[in-house]
């Protein structure tokens, strides 16, 4: 569903951010994107949601190729991709439900459908009781749940999460991670960039490790979305230097 073919990315100002990266992410798959700071994790996510275009190579997302996509085709693609960030990016003057509804309003969803959709997704992320709270009245973990609800409300094919637990304590981190697993279990693919090796090591999810813009380790494109029994592979030694 997402395919990188010999992708390189060079920002107008700055060195090479990605160097000949190729991988493939299946429908409904869960994968971690790890690597040290500056390795190119966020750049990969940006290329997927067309926040940036590749300098070389091709990025295919949901059947659309970066090579031929026009500016006017980007919004339609983004409606099929959910994105969350470390810093939540909520609108401070709107309640949780208004933040989620905003994502539907701005793509022209009929009014009558917005209320039920928002209620359903807030329940899914466990925030139904705080629907009318403003962001500053919520904990970090709760704010990230609102952001996830906003990313999910349009039923995306894939949820991209860029360090979603980077600002959270351990308890909140576990809660958000569990939520992402539940979302994945419901059939949405998840690609999660994370520094948090403890988190990455607790599961057998597929791991893509970046370093200096190169994909240096892929625990297996064929890995099933369900955690397989047995110890995690040599990924621990590969990523050990990062911590």
């Amino acid at each position, binding site marked *: 569903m997402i395919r990188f073919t010999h992708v390189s990315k060079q920002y107008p100002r700055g060195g090479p951010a990605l160097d000949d990266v190729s991988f493939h992410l299946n429908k409904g798959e869960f994968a971690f994107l790890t690597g040290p700071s500056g390795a190119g994790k966020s750049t990969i996510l940006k290329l997927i949601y067309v926040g940036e275009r590749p300098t070389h190579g091709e990025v295919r997302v949901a059947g659309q190729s970066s090579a031929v996509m026009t500016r006017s085709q980007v919004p339609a693609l983004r409606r099929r991709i959910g994105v969350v960030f470390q810093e939540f990016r909520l609108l401070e003057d709107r309640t949780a439900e208004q933040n989620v509804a905003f*994502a539907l309003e701005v793509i022209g969803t009929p009014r009558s459908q917005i209320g039920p959709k928002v209620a359903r997704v807030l329940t899914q992320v466990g925030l139904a009781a705080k629907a009318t709270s403003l962001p500053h009245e919520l904990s970090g973990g709760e704010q990230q749940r609102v952001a996830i609800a906003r990313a999910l409300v349009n039923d995306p094919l894939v949820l991209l999460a860029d360090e979603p637990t980077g600002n959270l304590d351990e308890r909140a981190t576990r809660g958000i991670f569990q939520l992402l697993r539940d979302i994945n279990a419901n059939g949405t693919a998840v690609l999660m960039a994370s520094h948090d090796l403890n988190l990455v090591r607790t599961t057998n999810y597929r791991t893509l490790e970046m370093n200096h813009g190169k994909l240096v380790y892929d625990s297996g494109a064929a890995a099933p979305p369900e955690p397989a029994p047995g110890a995690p592979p040599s990924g621990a030694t590969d990523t050990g230097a990062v911590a």
Partner: protein
Amino acid sequence: MNLAVREAFRAFNRAPMLSALSVTTIAFSLFAFGLFGLVAVNMRAALDQVEERVEIRGFVAAGTAPEATSAAVGDIAAFPEVGSVRLVTEVQALERARRELGEFQDVFEAGILPASIEVRLREGYRDPETVRTIARRFEAYDFIDDIRYGEEWVEKLYNMRNIATAVGITLGLIFAGVAVIIIGSTIRMAVLARSREIHIMRLVGATDGFIRAPFLIEGFLKGLLGGLLALALTYVTYTFVGQYLVQATYFEPALAVFGVLAGALIGLLGSAVSVGRHLRRV
């Protein structure tokens, strides 16, 4: 679209002072434009009246046969530029002079005042160029002694009018430019104030047109309000001038509507030219 209109109104609420400021600046720009327009409208009316009186008068040499003059009158009447021709005989000239200068009527004796042919031009042919051409053709008759048509006067009026038009267009363009710049900087601030929302809109797949719409609507509404305010200001000024200075004419309703729409158009254009540029930066 509903949401876009709501967003446009939110922008007013979010920055009431700034919005009021931009509306009043647009209003003042248009007000200055409108004031000039009023001056122009009134001057035009005055010029039209003056122009109606533009007249070429040829004095007929004494002793000219009446057949010659009446033949000339016929010829001149056939010029396409000519509206009316009138022959004023010596007797008529004397009578007119006596009427106009009642108490000195004894001064005049028959034969002192020459007969004359008076020509008025059709509307659209009263510019100095045409007047001069007709006067020259007129002069070609042997029996025309002298010719008068207030050439300097006509030319001055025309120059005044041309200068007035040029000043009007220039001022109008400058003010429109100022309005566009003000709207542009308002948009810039509005875009910055909403940059978080715009980021999120883009992220969740809102189209460029959708993101742009509230800014265009906002500019349109501000221009419309500015136009209405300017209309009110010009009307107040007009009433004031009418009461204390001279009786003037106001804009015809169609022109007033046009002025308000021009304000809205300035607002819309001001937004359109800057919104793309500023959106690209956030």
